[in-house]
């Protein structure tokens, strides 16, 4: 039986290889355009349309257009990649119709890249080739960067044109092999895509002699192992936002065409499933996942292998597997990214998970707000089924499993396991009591495993590269990487994948570029409405489940909102609480009534009518709600309040006692006053005030009628003499 799986997979691979070879992409100029909800919103459909027109009218047969998913570099979208054979791939940012024309005439037709529009200034220097070193935090030879500097020096000494060769480093290619720890380093050569594994300085000399001076590959040093994020870095290795990241779950995002099964297979897809079905041992899969120390990425961080083991050990043999794609945290979008940009990987991860727990049927619960994700997952399901990778007798192994999409309908609480199950059953999505846990009695009373999208996104890599490998990427408690959705007041917004244990500072400053306009950082909010605030002084904290919990926050699904001095902590806490109040399903009193009452108190604090007793009341209510609510929504709802009280109590006190909001966010506490000294009586403010409450003659000092002022801030904005003061 297992040989038939091998045959099946080889058949699939050779069919795909043939189809890929027929496209002859490596001989052509490939233009790739990002395509995902965010890219579309930024205008990537127009960009594609314009390229189609240009290619047609130019009549060039050697230019190919490709659609890829989204890399997660949100604020620079739409992103376009241009790969000319033998040259380094060039990425462009914020492409629009005019820029398409420029790219096409200058880069494609005349061979001159449009330097000023390169993504993140990646063409500030133009190079012919590049050596990318693994930064070597884990596997590097002689510690971080030593080899890189030696190599750069040798190049300067010996290469005829060292300025045409770039030497750089990336976070981690994902090699991290245990035996060679500290004894080897990996180097990617672009554009040849050769991956070298070196053990000594002599190896560096050989690369210089053979590759740099001789133009030949150093066959002896070519790495034989497949590296997880090689293709990603080959495309994006020169972009600062990406090369400090480690891409495992997101390795294919922005690299493959999310609607093509063939491309997914070309990039190593379904190999893991083949391995699993060849081994024919669910326990082996579970053991690998246990070894990987993979913890659920949906928020709770429960060890995935343990959950699978519990489901596998049930007596009942009708079992279900569910992928939780509800992504309710208002500020998180990594699951959407993976569903849209690498849907086959999620499907493959689910089939492997289903095999591990021996489930017959699976559901992907996706929120209806994500129409493109739904479309692409449906396409991935259909194509996989048509190719014998899903449904009856998967890969001729005898194992059968099928998948179905179920839509959410806009209820945050449906992300909670028992509510989600109720929703799939067609009921109101209200949580139920646990235990019994879903792994014992879940969907229609049968053992059910629920895992998050990102959890499944890691599975194929764990099988391909081994649980031990995955465990080494992370910390002693939790293996692997975590994807964060970096947003708020940060320079570079987008998806960031880093090894667990990376410091907050690395994420916010090294990758995110720091706070917008270089304002001081106030706090980082993690975990969304169920999480808390990490104050700026704790930036050196390692991002992992335990340290975050210790700081009074949670990992959550990975939303990371950067807050600056411009943001009022009380206001943000109120924002989260209004969210949970709206989303409380109303089943149990502490949550239904507690959230409403807490929100009322926060409202009083922000409009300046609260008294000190309110603060005690708030704290008591928060603790009550935390301890007595039925489900995770109510139990976590007070977290933003408690953690902000912990770290920013002085701001609460300022609001209550001094009636002052230092970030000028709480409108009721702001006063606009015109300075006698600075006002020259230009009348601009009076003409702009929507309620006409500013009086004064031309060339005389103006006055605001505080009774009628609605605090819209218009006068503050229009006065060119800084005469309007906000206090």
């Amino acid at each position: 039986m297992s040989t038939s799986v091998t045959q099946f997979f080889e058949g699939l691979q050779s069919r795909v290889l043939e189809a890929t070879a027929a496209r002859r992409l490596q001989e052509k100029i490939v233009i790739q355009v990002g395509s995902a909800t965010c890219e579309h919103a930024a205008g990537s459909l127009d960009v594609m349309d314009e390229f189609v027109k240009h290619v047609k009218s130019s009549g060039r047969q050697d230019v190919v257009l490709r659609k890829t998913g989204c890399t997660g570099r949100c604020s620079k979208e739409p992103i376009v990649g241009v790969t000319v054979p033998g040259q380094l791939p060039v990425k462009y940012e914020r492409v629009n119709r005019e820029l398409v024309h420029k790219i096409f005439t200058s880069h494609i037709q005349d061979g001159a890249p449009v330097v000023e529009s390169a993504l993140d200034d990646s063409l500030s220097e133009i190079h012919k080739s590049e050596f990318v070193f693994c930064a070597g935090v884990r596997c590097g030879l002689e510690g971080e960067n030593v080899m890189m500097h030696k190599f750069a020096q040798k190049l300067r000494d010996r290469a005829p044109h060292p300025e045409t060769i770039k030497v750089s480093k990336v976070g981690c290619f994902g090699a991290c092999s245990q035996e060679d720890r500290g004894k080897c380093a990996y180097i990617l050569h672009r554009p040849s895509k050769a991956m070298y594994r070196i053990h000594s300085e002599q190896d560096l000399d050989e690369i210089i002699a053979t590759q740099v001076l001789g133009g030949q590959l150093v066959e002896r040093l070519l790495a034989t192992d497949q590296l997880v994020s090689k293709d990603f870095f080959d495309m994006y290795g020169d972009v600062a936002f990406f090369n400090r990241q480690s891409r495992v779950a997101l390795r294919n995002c922005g690299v493959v065409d999310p609607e093509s099964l063939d491309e997914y297979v070309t990039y190593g897809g379904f190999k893991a499933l083949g391995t699993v079905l060849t081994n024919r041992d669910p326990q082996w899969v579970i053991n690998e996942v246990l070894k990987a120390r993979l913890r659920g990425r949906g928020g709770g961080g429960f060890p995935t292998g343990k959950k699978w083991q519990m489901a596998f050990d049930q007596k009942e043999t009708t079992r279900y597997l569910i992928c939780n794609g509800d992504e309710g945290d208002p500020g998180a979008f990594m699951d959407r990214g993976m569903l849209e940009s690498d849907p086959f990987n999620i499907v493959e991860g689910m089939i492997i998970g289903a095999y591990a727990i021996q489930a017959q049927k699976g559901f992907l619960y996706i929120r209806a707000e994500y129409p493109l994700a739904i479309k692409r997952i449906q396409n991935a399901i259909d194509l996989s089924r048509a190719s014998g990778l899903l449904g009856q007798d998967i890969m001729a192994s005898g194992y059968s499993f099928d998948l179905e999409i179920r839509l959410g309908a806009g209820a945050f609480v449906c992300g909670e396991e028992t509510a989600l199950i109720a929703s799939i059953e067609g009921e109101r999505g209200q949580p139920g009591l646990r235990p019994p846990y879903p792994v014992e009695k879940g969907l229609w009373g049968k053992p059910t495993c629920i895992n998050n999208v990102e959890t499944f996104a890691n599975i194929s890599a764990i099988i391909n590269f081994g649980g031990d490998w995955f465990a080494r990427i992370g910390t002693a408690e939790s293996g692997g990487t975590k994807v964060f959705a970096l947003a708020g007041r940060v320079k570079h917004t987008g998806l960031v994948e880093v090894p667990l244990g990376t410091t907050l500072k690395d994420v916010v400053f090294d990758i995110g570029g720091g706070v917008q306009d270089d304002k001081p950082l106030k706090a980082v909010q993690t975990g969304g409405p169920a999480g808390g605030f990490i104050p700026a002084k704790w930036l050196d904290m390692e991002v992992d489940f335990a340290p975050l919990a210790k700081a009074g926050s949670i990992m959550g699904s990975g939303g990371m909102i950067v807050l600056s001095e411009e943001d009022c902590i009380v206001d943000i806490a109120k924002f989260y609480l209004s969210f949970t109040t709206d989303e409380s399903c109303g089943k149990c009193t502490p949550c239904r009534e507690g959230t409403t009452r807490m929100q009322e108190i926060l409202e009083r604090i922000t409009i300046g009518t609260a008294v000190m007793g309110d603060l005690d009341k708030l704290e008591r209510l928060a603790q009550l709600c935390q301890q007595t609510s039925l489900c995770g929504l109510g139990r976590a709802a007070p977290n933003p309040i408690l953690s902000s009280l912990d770290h920013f109590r002085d701001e609460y006190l300022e609001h209550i006692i001094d009636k002052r909001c230092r970030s000028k966010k709480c409108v009721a506490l702001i006063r606009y006053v015109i300075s006698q000294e600075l006002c020259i009586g230009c009348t601009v403010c009076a003409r702009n005030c929507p309620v006409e409450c500013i009086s004064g003659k031309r060339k005389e000092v103006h006055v605001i009628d505080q009774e009628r002022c609605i605090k819209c801030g218009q006068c503050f904005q229009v006065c060119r003499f800084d005469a309007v003061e906000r206090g």
Partner: protein
Amino acid sequence: MSHCCQVSTDNWEDVKAKCLTALPEDIVNYIDDHKGDEHAESNLIAILHRVQRHFGYLGQEQMNAVAQLAQIPLAKVTGVATFYHLFRLQPRGKHVISVCMGTACYVKGAEKLSQRLMDELGIHYGETTKDGMFSLDNSRCLGTCGLAPVIMVDDQVYGPVTPSEITIILEKYIKQPRAAAPKAALAVQ
């Protein structure tokens, strides 16, 4: 399969004919096709999504018909329809504008956008302009936080949007009765 899924009324043809006047044929067929499924009642949310896609909202008549055809108690249909935020029981304007009130957008000033929209349209959340042109809603994170603050008009996401751009966006829809969302062009190869 529970017995409620089996059709036992003798005036079934009449009932069905009446439902056909309330629902389009494809939805009736969808319900019919899935009636024999194991756990057929679990398709209720999917059915309601279809009805709403067709009509823009869930009318009483339509919910009655769904309850009849799918043989699910009306109380449950109504219960589900009112539980989920995305289901609407009132007709909506020609274009539905949704302001994202997720965290990233809130931090980046989404409130100013919603204030501007309310001022320009003269309506609050959940309301529709007198001419039936626009309805205003808010939503929780459209998953494009990187572009915050964003608004969505029908299926088109705009971001980042400044309050003054609101006027320009609205004008687009007022001028062209069917707003020209950019056409999806597919790759040549």
